[in-house]
């Protein structure tokens, strides 16, 4: 194989050396990356569920929520991060905002769809046996919509793992640091290895997180509505 333009590596051994030399750093960054994503996902889920609960009864509001989530996803994450640096400066906060924002959108969309897909007869019988609106939502509608919401969470998780890497541009935590630092000194020592570690790490994290969510879905979905 020809030596690549970006240093002499590319055959894997140098990447491996890089990993061995700085595995503690990599593990720490991975952990931070995952932690950022998971925490933002939790926050996004809460936000999306609350928002969907507010809008799902109204057709117009539901359509509006869907429109917003569709449009929001067209905003380039990098651009949004750039915009957020001005008010919030560098650091964790803009990263959290961006990741949560993007994580919320697919979950919101699915939550609205899920809540609207519950048969009217089920809601009627819940009200008919004396459940309040809130109780109906909490014990009937949300549990029944949960598999659909969870599907949204999985989509979100895949997406924001990548976005969290980009969010490292604001010097936030995570594997994105490896990618940015590598890209900024391409051709230099260990630059390529750094990028590879960042990218592969992100992919591995995405797979791990998805597996975790599959387990979560098995644990939290009632046997009665499992497909």
């Amino acid at each position: 194989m020809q030596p690549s333009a970006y240093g002499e590596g590319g055959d894997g051994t140098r990447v491996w050396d890089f990993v061995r030399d700085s595995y503690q750093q990599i593990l720490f960054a991975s952990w931070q990356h995952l932690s950022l994503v998971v925490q933002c996902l939790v926050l996004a889920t809460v936000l999306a569920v609350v928002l969907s609960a507010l809008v799902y009864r109204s057709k117009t509001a539901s359509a509006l929520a869907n429109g917003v989530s569709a449009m929001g996803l067209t905003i380039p994450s990098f651009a949004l991060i750039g915009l957020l640096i001005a008010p919030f400066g560098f650091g964790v906060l803009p990263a959290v905002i961006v990741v949560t924002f993007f994580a919320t959108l697919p979950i919101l969309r699915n939550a609205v769809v899920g809540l609207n897909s519950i048969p009217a007869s089920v809601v009627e019988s819940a009200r008919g046996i004396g459940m309040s609106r809130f109780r109906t939502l909490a014990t009937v509608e949300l549990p029944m919509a949960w598999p659909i919401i969870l599907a949204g969470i999985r989509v979100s998780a895949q997406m924001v793992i990548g976005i969290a890497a980009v969010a490292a541009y604001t010097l936030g935590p995570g594997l994105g640091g490896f990618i940015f630092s590598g890209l900024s000194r391409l051709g230099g020592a260990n630059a390529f290895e750094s990028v590879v570690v960042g990218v592969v790490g992100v992919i591995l994290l995405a797979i791990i997180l998805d597996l975790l969510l599959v387990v979560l879905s098995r644990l939290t979905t009632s046997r009665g509505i499992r497909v």
Partner: protein
Amino acid sequence: MSETQTIQNSAENVSGASILLDQVTKQYPGQTKPAVGGLTMEIPAGSIVMFVGPSGCGKTTTLKMINRLIEPTDGAIVINGDNVTDMNGDKLRRQIGYVIQAGGLFPHMSVAANIGLVPKMLGWDKDRIAARVDELLELVSLDPTVYRNRYPKELSGGQQQRIGVARALAADPPILLMDEPFGAVDPITRQRLQNELLNIQAELQKTIVCVTHDFDEAVKLGDWIAIFNEGAQIEQYDSPERILANPSNEFVENFIGSGAGLKQLTLNRVHEVEQQKAVTAAPGESPEAVIARLQEAGQQNVVILDSRGRAIQWLSQRQLSRMQVISDAADPNLPLVNEQSTLNEALDAMLVASTSAALVAGRRDAFTGLITVNTVMDAISAGQAAAQGDGDAPVGLNTGSIPQISDDDAPVNAAATDRHAATNTEGDAAAAGSTVAATSENASRPRDDAREPHAENHDTVNGHTTTNGHRAPWDETRRDSSATDRGDVGEENLTETRDRP
């Protein structure tokens, strides 16, 4: 038959509660006609009242206003003397069982969780809920150990419907509302569920209000049937016997459809009529001996019973004379009916088998006797004779809807109401007692209320609102309302007191 019983029961030990809809109106915004117009209706405690009528006639709306799933625009709902129009709707609904088509079960909850929902909301402890769940599962003929932990999707339609009934009965509510409960199951299951409901009702004596579009179902289940026309106008509210025998007008006649006489047969069950004894024999007996027994008894046919007493063959003397020995083969085409079957089903079995009698099976399918076509005919005449009797039907009429026609002219309204009442009573001399002009005290009093004050509908409601909270037998509440109807002054006072903080 059953109606006198029910009325008496209502004074005695029924767990059901009486319901009074007092000039209840539901007007949806943007619609000129009310969905339910000024409906006054009495539902006696401990009886099954069926609401029937064409689609969109307001019967379901009326049902849902009883538990205030739909809030009435006007009027009062009085349960056991308590005006519940202004109480917390969720709390009210926890005291009223509610069953919808296909049960309305929550798919993400197990059977036990579904049934235990209302008790849980009422704050029962876990052991009590678990015990109650098992009790109810047995009540609806499902084995608790098998079904307790199943999920709705693992049940058949009929089983889901049973769980729906069990859930509605969980907290032992005095009232059960059912909205087309058996609409989504196949005919055989439907019949079984209907019979089961009747058995449960015999045991529990709830007040059951059931909406259906199936008149036959109404005849089978109902102690009383209310036939609704558009805008929840009551066309006739009476016992099934009298509705079949004396439909109050053409609408009711059309609704009953053809074969009213046949439908009357669904009112009687095989065990209620006399059965004839039959000569029986066991497989293996010699035909000659059996023929001798038949001739001695003066009968033509012998019923062959298996070792458990179930009828397997039905043989004539001629068939016997051609046999060497009586075999133990079971004839699949026997006209067999159950003691719980209706006479209609018995007649059907005879017609299908082209026989003039049917074999009746009792407990564990053991043969009990014969029912003949003559018995069925006698039952028809007896039923018609019984329906001629004086009416003690509960009250059901509309007032508020009539002013809707021309709102500005009070005298015309009064005339219209009178005409309305008159058509009901004139319909048939024998039916005079049936719909509105009932003979019992109960019935006549509220009718007077309703007929007098057309312009005062709203005030009547106010009068009721003031009675809210204090518990009184519903007769008393009624008297209150009629008092307020008559005295304008007293009524204004009431309104004033109410306005004061």
